[in-house]
């Protein structure tokens, strides 16, 4: 892990150049340019708002559009970094076959690219907060930590997935399906408080309820999205009860995933 950080530092110029390349290429020759990046969370927000007008989801005193947009922000960042990360090695086959540098540069680059898009989404969130007359509190200082945690989760998936994808392209096919399912298992459309209400307060699943809640929060995104909404919109500290199962899982998976990637790396050039 320390080696990874060191590599990251040594190859910072390369990562910067590749990120810049990704962004330039993606939006060159397009009129709207980088604005396309934020189209996805905005569209999803509009759709969810529309759906919500039929089914009715209780969001407390926070307007639904901004609550769901604040959920979509970390979610889209996670989803895109993971799926781009998984494809990052195979889509750079030409480089892998010709030039050596530590291969973790690719998943990391994919993720850093998404940070730029995340920053733009933040601008939109800010505009919405002004519109709804919401003031950021001191708790929004938690945001960098939450984003960093999201990055670690995304990397945990990217490293493992990217290495597998070199051998079996099934990975890049399966991942979008899994991720879109995971979205419904994360508090994106609905707030976490609703799940908490059903399982912990009402004990809706009998004596399984508490275990089910832990299982639900084992999904790191549950904690991430909830924390993000709390620190940005509600002016509260993150709910550590909802966070810790996911953090533990990530701490277990990430080193394993990284070691797996480094091992597989030796054969990338031969197999890709």
């Amino acid at each position: 892990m320390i080696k990874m950080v060191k590599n990251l530092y040594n190859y910072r110029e390369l990562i910067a150049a590749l990120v810049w390349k990704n962004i330039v290429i993606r939006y060159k020759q397009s009129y709207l340019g980088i604005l396309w990046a934020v189209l996805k969370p905005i569209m999803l927000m509009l759709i969810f708002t529309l759906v919500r007008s039929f089914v009715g989801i209780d969001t407390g005193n926070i307007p639904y559009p901004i609550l769901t947009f604040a959920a979509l922000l970390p979610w889209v960042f996670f989803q895109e970094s993971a799926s781009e990360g998984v494809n990052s090695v195979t889509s750079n086959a030409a480089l892998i076959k010709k030039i050596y540098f530590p291969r973790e540069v690719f998943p990391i680059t994919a993720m850093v690219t998404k940070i730029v898009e995340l920053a733009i989404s933040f601008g939109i969130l800010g505009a919405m907060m002004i519109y709804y007359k919401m003031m950021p509190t001191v708790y929004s200082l938690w945001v960098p930590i939450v984003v960093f945690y999201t990055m670690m989760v995304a990397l945990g998936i990217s490293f493992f997935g990217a290495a597998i994808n070199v051998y079996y392209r099934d990975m890049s096919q399966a991942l979008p399906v899994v991720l879109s399912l995971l979205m419904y298992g994360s508090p994106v459309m609905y707030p976490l408080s609703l799940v908490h209400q059903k399982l912990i307060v009402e004990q809706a699943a009998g004596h399984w309820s508490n275990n089910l809640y832990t299982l639900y929060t084992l999904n790191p995104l549950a904690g991430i999205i909830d924390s993000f909404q709390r620190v940005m919109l509600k002016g509260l500290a993150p709910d550590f009860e909802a966070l810790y199962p996911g953090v533990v899982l990530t701490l277990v998976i990430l080193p394993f995933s990284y070691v797996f990637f480094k091992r597989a790396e030796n054969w990338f050039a031969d197999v890709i």
Partner: protein
Amino acid sequence: MPIIEVNHLTKEYQLGHIISLKENVANAYRRMAGKAIHKREDFKALDDVSFSIEQGEVVGIIGHNGAGKSTLLKHLANISKPTKGNVIVRGSVAPLIEVGAGVNPELTGRENIYLNGAILGIPKKIIQQKLDEIIAFSELEQFIDTPVKRYSSGMTVKLGFSIATSLDADILIVDEVLAVGDLAFQRKCFDRMEDMIKRQGKTVLLVSHNIRQIQRLCNRVVLLDHGRINMDGEPQAVCDNFYEQSDRKIKANINSVQTGTEDSGEIELIEIYFSDHTGQRAEKLFYNHNCSIHFKINVLQVLEEVTFGFGFHTTDFLYLTTHNSEEQLCINHLTEGYHEIKCKIFQLPLLPGIYSVRFGITAGKAARDVFYGESLKHFMVAGDIPITKRDGFFALDAHWKLENNKATELQIISMAEA
């Protein structure tokens, strides 16, 4: 300490497709059940290769397609990992393996310089310093802000080469890049390579099918054959050996398909052979000795006004000499049946090496081609030659003399003192 050390390097690839997940699971089951697992065939791209290279050496790597040249370079550039053995490289490596690997078509030339610089590990500061030099070398000043996708392929390679050679590394690994661009640019690349080799004293590994280039640039050549080192040593000797090998391969091909000749069906070439100065048949000729070349033909239809011609060429088809019978032999009417034509060669001027014969016959007033073939016969020239005329194909009959005037005398004295 050698700058590059390769110890018992072996690289195996598995032939065929990657086995599917299903097969993997099935194999795991078989292993658990103690049955034999289905394995794919292994292919040894490199087989126990060992050598070391000292700082400042310029090493050429030659061999047929599939001999393992590129695989070897990939290991030196740390792109592939050995199956067995190890590779130790003490210094930074600039891999010019297919230059322009990192060139992105969407970006402009200038943007690509920065991007490729970063990919090759050149710090941004250095790139900024060298930007003008790189652009000037690539000869693309006018197009540098145009996306590379609108470049011609030659322009792309020029750009790639310019970036790659601006990298200041201890070891240069070059894979077939000098065959790029137009002649003038090739010349420029070659000069830059020579400059890096001769003046900057860099260690260079060069892979090429252009054996002459290798001979010219390298001071050591490694011949690979089927993943093994076949020969390692002085360029001339190794290249000659390689020519012989190639010849054998070419000959085997010719014998099997017979495509080396064009003939109109009026004549049949039976045999070409040499005789030496004593008149004996010979496979090997000697430099500066007289010899003869004989052509045995079978004329199937009567031919008018026949001219014979033959020439020598190298095995890579560089034409060295020709001679035809037009002025010496006037054959107005060549009857059907077997004939033998003999041409006497005085003091064969070819330097030792492997050469090949081409032979042609024309007939009629318009001198239409009746028969023409190249690489019809390979032969070897041997002989001891003084060191003064070792390089090249021909001996030059020359004489050196010191004109005795004061100026040169002074020069000689000062040279002796130095």
